[in-house]
């Protein structure tokens, strides 16, 4: 089974500035793959190279199994990158009709179905210039979905959406993967969103890949337990170098298997243990610790 996207030493430089260093990445088909990173990490550069908008300075990549990137491959990809890209003088319906003509895509009723799916059926005759940011975002998504893509690339898809719209987007993304078999590459700063919808993530920083894996594995990579105990000094001494004070207790970096022995040791040493709970790590914690952000 071919990957949706496979990069090998892929990079881009603008003069002395390196936008993307040398990226080795494999994005399997059939999942939502998150690409995370702070501003300037190289996410948009990666997407633009994949879509043929920017030529790589080094390395290579295969998109849907094809190394030569031309329109026949790109027509199997739907993309919504950065701010919605719309013609102000076209209505929502005309925008989709134009996109279909440009792609050579013909399917009766598809434009209406897409307008319905992205919630713009009632605004189909309005010019794009009158749209709110959220509506523009929905229309750009509709254009990306129009030609039934195998791979969908979404860059900050929830920008400008209200809470209901964000919920709709989350449902749509999961439906596309689970019901329609679409592979989705999702770039976002909303880590909570990514954690909820993505199966795997890659974290980029300053043009380099610094972490990659299943979301569940990344957030469970660091295991720590908070223990409320007294006297605290005696508990710290008993737990050893793995422990540090935190409020009225201590945090101990231990694995799940070590926990019962530690608690037995504390109580055996005459220390009162009032509470012991695992500290769950969010993707935001992983992101911040990986990128070195404060």
């Amino acid at each position, binding site marked *: 089974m071919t990957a949706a996207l496979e990069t090998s030493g892929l990079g881009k430089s603008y003069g002395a500035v390196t936008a993307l260093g040398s990226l080795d990445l494999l994005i399997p088909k059939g999942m939502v793959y998150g690409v995370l990173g702070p501003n300037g990490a190289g996410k948009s550069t990666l997407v633009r190279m994949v*879509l043929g*908008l*920017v*030529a790589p300075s080094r390395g290579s990549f295969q998109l849907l199994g094809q190394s030569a990137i031309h*329109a026949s491959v790109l027509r199997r990809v739907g993309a919504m990158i*950065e*701010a919605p890209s719309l013609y102000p*003088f076209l209505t929502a319906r005309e925008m989709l009709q134009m996109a279909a003509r440009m792609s050579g895509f013909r399917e009766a009723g598809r434009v209406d179905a897409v307008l319905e799916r992205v919630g713009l059926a009632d605004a189909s005759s309005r010019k794009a210039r009158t749209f709110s940011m959220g509506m523009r975002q929905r229309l750009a998504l509709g254009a990306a979905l129009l030609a039934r893509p195998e791979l969908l690339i979404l860059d900050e898809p929830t920008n400008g959406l209200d809470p209901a719209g964000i919920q709709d987007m989350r449902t749509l993304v999961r439906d596309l993967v689970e019901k329609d078999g679409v592979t989705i590459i999702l770039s976002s700063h909303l880590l909570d969103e990514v954690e909820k919808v993505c199966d795997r993530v890659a974290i980029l920083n300053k043009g380099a890949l610094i972490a990659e894996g299943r979301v569940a594995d990344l957030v469970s990579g660091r295991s720590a337990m908070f223990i409320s105990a007294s006297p605290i000094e005696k508990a710290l001494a008993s737990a050893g170098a793995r422990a540090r004070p935190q409020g009225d207790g201590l945090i101990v970096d231990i694995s799940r298997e070590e926990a019962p022995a530690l608690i037995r040791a504390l109580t055996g040493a005459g220390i009162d243990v009032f509470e012991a709970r695992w500290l769950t790590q969010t993707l935001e914690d992983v992101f911040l610790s990986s990128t070195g952000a404060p």
Partner: protein
Amino acid sequence: MIGQAFGAELFKLSRNQWSLFWAFGFLPAFVLVAGIAEETLARTYVGDALPYANPVRYAYDGLGTMQPSIFQLFAILGAGILFAGEYRWETWRAILPRNARTAIMIAKLLLFALAAAASILACGLARWFVGLLDAALTGRADAQANSLIGLLTGFAGAFLQIMVTGALTMLTAVVSRSLMAAIVAPVMILVALDLSGLRFRLETGDPWLAALPNFAGRAIREAGLAFMGEPDAIGVHLAGPSAMAMAALTVLFAVTAIVLFRAQDLSRE
């Protein structure tokens, strides 16, 4: 690919009605209204200066409406919208993944050619209508100088000249990535060419004048006049080289634009 891109570009331009009117529709409308006003005023204040009118000669003059630089501004506006509009609206990223870069640029150039040709023909028709009005009021139409070859030659001169301008606008749009620059730069070049008309004369018959679109266009129009029986046509021998020079300039500008565009990084449109 080119056919699909042409269909999409045609659809897009047909929906951009304000730009479509000012770029390609205003001039024919102006020619018609100004011609009717001219006839009305002339008859009111001067009277019937000539006892006959020739609608075909009127049409011939109408076909050349776009040749002065000031009137080419409208076509430059149209070309600017076609070629630089994608940079202005940051829409290259919306269409490039759907079609090939070369196909889209060729489709845009073909659409410009179609729209410019329609606009030139509409100017000719508008002026022909004014000629018919004149003939009706005069009561006599001059049957002389009705040469289809002459009309076609006049059309070809105007069309080739406007295509050079369109291709130049295409090139400046790609290089500058700016709608404003894509319009201003060709206008400045046309003004410079017009100023050269103060120093050089087609009457001299210098062969190198065929390389300047304003002289080349006029040489072809003069050849058209000769076909229509005009005895005082000048520089007719330059018509052939002028046509070839303008076709070559159009191809040169367009191919350069396409080559540059194919290699252009669109990290930001």
